[in-house]
């Protein structure tokens, strides 16, 4: 491992096997992960706007003050730079802070502390910064340009940061646990549209999903949809409704990318669609497309295609927003086109 990242893995700490599973929403799974880790490790604490007494804008930390006390579930002023800066300092001093951005969009105010300080401390001085920034992201609820963005590509381009984006409740828990245990700063993208819409079986107790490993959400032979977050569900539904042999690869981690899984699937099917809700240019889709073209060119049966939002801000107007964000019909059409190619 390069000096850019600190080493030490969550998996090593995963001693006990999960005791069973329980059906949870994506939101409950995030909550469960936080609670599990805070119970297990006293150095873990939360900091964010309205997360204490109010329980968070989306109620992820509901009841945390009662269980862990206000010292471990800190209400911060409306100052993202201060929240992240505080977390960096706490992490350097040996704590494991989990910052909540009320909306992922607001992280621009904390950019310097995250990208220039947290991401580079280990490279510059060999100091690990074990912190997590939770980023409620994504649109689809008429939140407009400041409450709907998907800013993952900004952070994928900052060496020293890890970026994860779970699509299922089980991964939401497992990846948050791994993010907290990781000695590096991790951006954790939680799609707001999945909070209460996605529900699946989540292992109770300790459950960690390794960072950097993609997951085959649906196996197929004819084409691959590489997706993450909300787009995974569009791809799965498209596969079902079209009744076609489509493979869906859920990236889960965006930095570092699971290059091997992407290439294995691309080589198998020869046709790759990369789908995300974030804007198009220089995004994850572009990166995956470039990787596939560079490494699997001779296995390709079709150009690598992207299904993304166009390079525009997210509109308030519901019909306009729908036309900007990739919808199920768009996914089906993109799959049909590639299958027919």
């Amino acid at each position, binding site marked *: 491992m390069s000096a850019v990242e600190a080493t030490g893995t969550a998996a090593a700490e995963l001693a006990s096997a999960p005791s069973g599973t329980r059906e949870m929403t994506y939101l409950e799974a995030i909550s469960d992960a936080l609670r599990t880790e805070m119970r297990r490790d006293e150095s873990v604490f939360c900091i964010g706007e309205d997360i204490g007494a109010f329980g968070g804008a989306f109620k992820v930390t509901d009841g945390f003050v009662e269980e862990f006390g206000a010292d471990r579930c800190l209400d911060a002023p409306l100052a993202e730079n201060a929240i992240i800066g505080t977390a960096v300092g706490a992490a350097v001093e040996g704590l494991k802070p989990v910052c909540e951005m009320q909306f992922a969009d607001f992280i621009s105010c904390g950019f310097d502390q995250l990208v220039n300080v947290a991401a580079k401390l280990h490279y510059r001085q060999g100091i690990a910064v074990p912190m997590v920034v939770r980023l409620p992201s994504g649109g689809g609820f008429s939140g407009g340009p400041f409450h709907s963005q998907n800013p993952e590509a900004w952070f994928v381009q900052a060496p020293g940061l890890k970026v994860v984006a779970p699509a299922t409740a089980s991964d939401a828990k497992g990846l948050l646990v791994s993010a907290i245990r990781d000695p590096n700063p991790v951006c954790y993208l939680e799609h707001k549209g999945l909070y209460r819409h996605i529900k699946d079986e989540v292992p109770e107790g300790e459950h960690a999903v390794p960072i950097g490993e993609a997951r085959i959400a649906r196996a197929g032979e004819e084409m691959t949809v590489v997706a993450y977050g909300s787009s995974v569900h569009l791809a799965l539904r498209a596969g079902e409704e079209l009744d076609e042999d489509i493979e869906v690869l859920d990236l889960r981690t965006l930095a570092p990318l699971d290059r091997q899984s992407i290439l294995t699937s691309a080589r198998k099917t020869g046709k790759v669609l990369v789908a995300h809700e974030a804007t198009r240019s220089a995004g994850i889709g572009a990166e995956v497309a470039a990787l596939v073209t560079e490494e699997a060119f*001779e296995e390709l049966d079709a150009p690598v295609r992207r299904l993304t939002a166009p390079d525009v801000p997210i509109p308030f107007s519901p019909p306009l927003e729908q036309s900007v964000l990739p919808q199920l019909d768009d996914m089906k059409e993109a799959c049909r086109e590639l299958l027919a190619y």
Partner: protein
Amino acid sequence: MSSSPTEQATTAVDVVMPQMGVSVAEGTIVEWRKRPGDWIEADEPVCDVTTDKIDVEIPAPASGRMQEILVEPGTTVAVGTPLARIDAEAKPGEAHPDEHAANGGQPAAEAPPPRTEAAPPQAEQAPAPNGEEDRSRFYSPVVRRIADKHGVDLEQVKGTGIGGRVRKKDVLAYIEGQEGAPEGRPEPLLHIESPYRPDEADAPQPSEAGTEAAPAAPAGAPPPGVGELVGPTRREPMSVMRQAIARHMTGSRRTAAHCTTIVEADFARVAARRGELRDAMKRRGVSLTYLAFVARATVEALQEHPRLNASVDGDELVYHDDVNLGIAVALDDGLIVPVIRRAQRLSLEGMAAAISDVAERARAGKLDPDEVHGGTFTITNPGQFGAVLATPIINQPQVAILDLEAIVKRPVVVEGEDGDSIAIHPMTYLCMSWDHRALDGADAARFLAKVKARLETWEVSR
């Protein structure tokens, strides 16, 4: 249309029926690729013309806009006849409905200044009338790689993708179909790379003109009352090429005293030599076929036996110094015989390259009209369907034609130091039709013996 060009705008340029080789006096318009109003670039094909020998594309003499079409498809006109007019003064950006379609529907908002050099939209990029571009001959990287690995000729694979594209699944299915064929399927023949190869192997071809076929029906109308016994029928005009073949073949049967002599030849050494050279030749882009060996052996034998490299002209025999070797190439409907001139100067490798060159260009319709004239001896090679014998018709005014049929493995007696034994060798029959007016059976047999001996003693490195 008799109006002379001078009556048109001074900027109009005529497209005329060109002189296609020395022997062609007239041509028939097959299809116009441009319609009046279309933009055309200089040298872009404007129409297709067929003659009794060959099909050619007529290039535009100038850039401009198609003004008028003077000769409709199907019409035959003399060399030099104006076929269409191009307005060379037209500006490429000027709006025209067809160009809009070709340009993705964007209106030509700003017309470029007069005489602009900006490239006009290419009509080829426009979708075909049925809305789907023909992409059947674009192969993706994976398709090329798989085809290469399995030695698949992609032209034979039916594409099911957009625009007829050959997809990965198509080429895999093709390979599976080949491997999983029922056991009764005949062993693949050894010289399927022959240029004598129709596009669809499973469609029985009409009788090839190089070989004799029983006439489908006696000349003239059937006797009264027979027609209704035939059942439903369909009539199609013969293509120009079909008519030419019919004319030449019946003419040859009337003219020459046809005889056919057959020898059997053992291709073991040729096969061994081919194995030695094939990969190296393939790297240079040349496919080394058995036909090339036969052609090379034939040319050598012709030089020793000039009576077969001759023509009959009235009461005279004309002996040719050069061997101009005709190679029959099957087309979709018909065949054409491009001529490899001065074939005696070609090595085996040169012969293979020359054969694939003329065969490819013949199938692509890119032969120069003069390339199908002046042959002194012809080889025909329709063996891919497994036929072992044929009695070809001589290509007049030549005096002989050699037919290479299927090369198949057979048990043969080989003489060794320890006596005779039985071995499996690739064998074929070399069938030659010859004109008894010009030579006799002994000449034919001696010549064939020479070809056979050359093939059976081909030098092999190991």
